[in-house]
């Protein structure tokens, strides 16, 4: 069941996030990330957060701001090369970082969303990222066991929603948003435009509204 009323003011939406929450954030290299929601989270000062995302924006920009503000306890993601503050904070012991190969990261989030607790993959076998993980052979090839990744809250960005919460995306701004929509207990989506239900082409809807809890429109 979902609440019928999905429209929230930005701060009302962000107040659903608690200290210590596991927060998933869509986006890839500052594209397709919910800039207004991230900005509001940075201003909220909520801390001790575990942030689950592909990257962490750039230094002081996007999710990078949460790190500059000291709001992050732990990161689960895969590519922090665009924000060298991450390596520095990790090397100084300020934050904990779990690196997951990007494809395993996407699949682990998808798995969480579809009720699969863990899965085997060939990616990372024989590398440091597979050390201390279960390895099993299938048809004479080795695979590593990876666990699903879920969150308390997902902060996402879509291009357009209808009033029910059906979503469509724009070009490469889609990235992790559709899978994250399935993997969090509470899904908050920032959109550019909201139209009447029935106005989006049913064949083109990427994320059906069953996965969406809260819509916030970028003003």
């Amino acid at each position, binding site marked *: 069941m979902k609440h019928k009323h999905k429209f929230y003011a930005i701060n009302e939406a962000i107040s659903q996030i608690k200290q210590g929450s596991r927060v998933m954030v869509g986006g890839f290299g500052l594209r397709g990330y919910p800039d207004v929601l991230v900005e509001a989270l940075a201003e909220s000062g909520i801390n001790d957060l575990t942030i689950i995302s592909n990257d962490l924006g750039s230094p002081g920009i996007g999710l990078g701001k949460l790190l500059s503000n000291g709001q992050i306890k732990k990161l689960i993601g895969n590519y922090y090369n665009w924000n060298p503050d991450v390596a520095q904070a990790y090397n100084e012991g300020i934050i904990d970082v779990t690196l*997951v190969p990007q494809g395993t990261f996407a699949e682990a989030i998808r798995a969480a969303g579809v009720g699969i607790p863990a899965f085997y993959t060939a990616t990372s076998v024989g590398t440091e990222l597979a050390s201390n993980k279960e390895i099993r052979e299938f048809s004479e090839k080795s695979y590593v066991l990876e666990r699903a990744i879920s969150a308390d809250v997902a902060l996402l960005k879509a291009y357009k929603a209808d009033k029910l919460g059906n979503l469509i995306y724009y070009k490469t701004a889609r990235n992790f948003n559709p899978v994250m929509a399935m993997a969090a207990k509470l899904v908050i989506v920032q959109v550019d435009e909201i139209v009447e239900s029935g106005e989006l082409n049913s064949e083109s809807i990427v994320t059906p509204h069953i996965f969406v809890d809260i819509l916030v429109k970028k003003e």
Partner: protein
Amino acid sequence: MINISKEEAKNRIAKRIAQEFNVTKDIVFINLGVGIPTMVANYINNENVFIQAENGILGVGPLAEGDDIDFQLINAGRQPVTERKGCSYFDSSVSFGMIRGGHIDVTVIGAFEVDGEGNIANWIIPNGKQLGVGGAMDLVSGAGKVIIAMQHNGKDGKRKIKKSCTLPITGFQEADMVVTEWAVFSLYQGRLVLQEIASDITLDELKSRTEAEFKISDNLIEFKT
């Protein structure tokens, strides 16, 4: 010791790798990593080749310039790109499904080091200024063929084709081909074989710039620049 500029070296490598794709009459799907691999696209002239970028696009066109720049349309190196005809978009799990499920025919990827057994090190320098793995491990284990594009030597002539990788590896015996500005090597069952050598370097010089031992192909030819 002969030397060429960094730019010339990179272009030479990109140009040589593009030749792998310019003859195919079948539809081929490739993924290009950042750096030299992205430059390969500049030399591909075959509409049968479809470039995939792991951030969710199949059918990457040329880099976008001027009015064509759309901030939301980028490749995995965050460069603004264009769409080619037949382009499609999808989410990250479908994108990596293509890669991990064996649907991508070739990945061209850079490396810090590669060794004589085909191990690749390209994701991290321990305790360095960068922390990230990206899609490298998925690509080297999932793509049909792995082509390494890198300059033969690093700073101060440091040899990058090692007996054994010294940095953390990205994949175990995953490299199939190594292309540098001086040579083309193939890897077969854990053995490095010299297939092509540039006309402006001698075999002895190539050996001195390569730490790994390599076999010389019976069909050794001149590097097609």
